[in-house]
């Protein structure tokens, strides 16, 4: 059966992984053409690191980058700034040539996954 593989990764599993472990896993899977859905998403710093590593791995032929969509972070209060809080919110990541965002708002994301590479 032809299709696109979707990996839905739970918050529990993400919580057990370090930042680089998460980012490496995401990039490796996306470069294989998979779509990754993270239940709890990434922190802003992890997202920036993911963009950095993506830029390093763009080869201008097979891999031109990633499409990432997540909801904006909830505004943090004083205490959560100091003691830390949850990471990001639900996030979808895929190869830029397969995943296209159609519509996005604060509470809704609509995306299209193409079968062709």
């Amino acid at each position, binding site marked *: 059966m032809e299709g696109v593989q979707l990996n839905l990764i739970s918050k529990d599993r993400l919580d057990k992984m370090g930042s680089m472990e998460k980012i490496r896993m995401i990039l490796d899977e996306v470069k294989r053409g998979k779509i990754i859905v993270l239940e709890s998403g990434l922190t802003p710093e992890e*997202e920036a690191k993911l*963009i950095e590593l993506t830029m390093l791995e763009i080869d201008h032929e097979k891999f031109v980058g*990633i*499409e990432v969509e*997540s909801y*904006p972070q909830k505004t943090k209060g004083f205490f959560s700034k*100091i003691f*830390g809080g949850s990471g990001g919110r639900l996030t979808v990541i895929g190869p*830029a040539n397969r995943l296209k965002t159609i519509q*996005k708002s604060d509470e809704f994301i609509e995306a299209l996954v193409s079968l062709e590479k």
Partner: protein
Amino acid sequence: MGIIVKIKKKFKFLFKLFSRKDRMKIGIYGPPNAGKTTLANRILRDWTGDVMGSVSDVPHETRRARLREGVKIEVDGKSVTIDIVDTPGLATKIDFHEFLKFGLSEEEAKRRAKEATEGVIEAIKWLDDLDGVLMVLDATEDPYTQVNVTIVGNIEARGLPLLIVANKIDLPNASPARIKAAFPQHPVVPISALKGLNIDTLYREIAERFG
């Protein structure tokens, strides 16, 4: 991450509150083609008579960060001196085929794409050396992009003061209100960097927030 580094990061925003510098380093951030260099040129032309760099309709025209030190802005008797860092546009994908549409040869397009990827990395690295950010968004575009969300999230995580500039209000389909609705927790100043519309309000806000 080491515990000391973690604690330093957590308390950085508190530390910044009590240790304001005489001269703040302000980064101009945003997605490609939002008008970052046009704004940097406008500020420099108005206050130093100089320019920062070239602008173009081809995305990723700025592929190296540029620093201009000691720009003095005076508004309503209040004066602020800032160092301006004009950064390359941030993106999650860079496809050289996009540049071919603008008439570049394949070789030029590939070289531009490679330099653009390096520029994105440089822009992210600069975030650690700044005291404040002017985030420039194209008011005719959807503000809910991941790049915008990531930039704002990183600025908030670092506790940096942020001023959002809703640029290109001279265009008929511009909607600064959409940007205000997307980032209600931050001040938004609608301007046209190209035409100079409402630029005095921006200077007043810069003096207020970064002074």
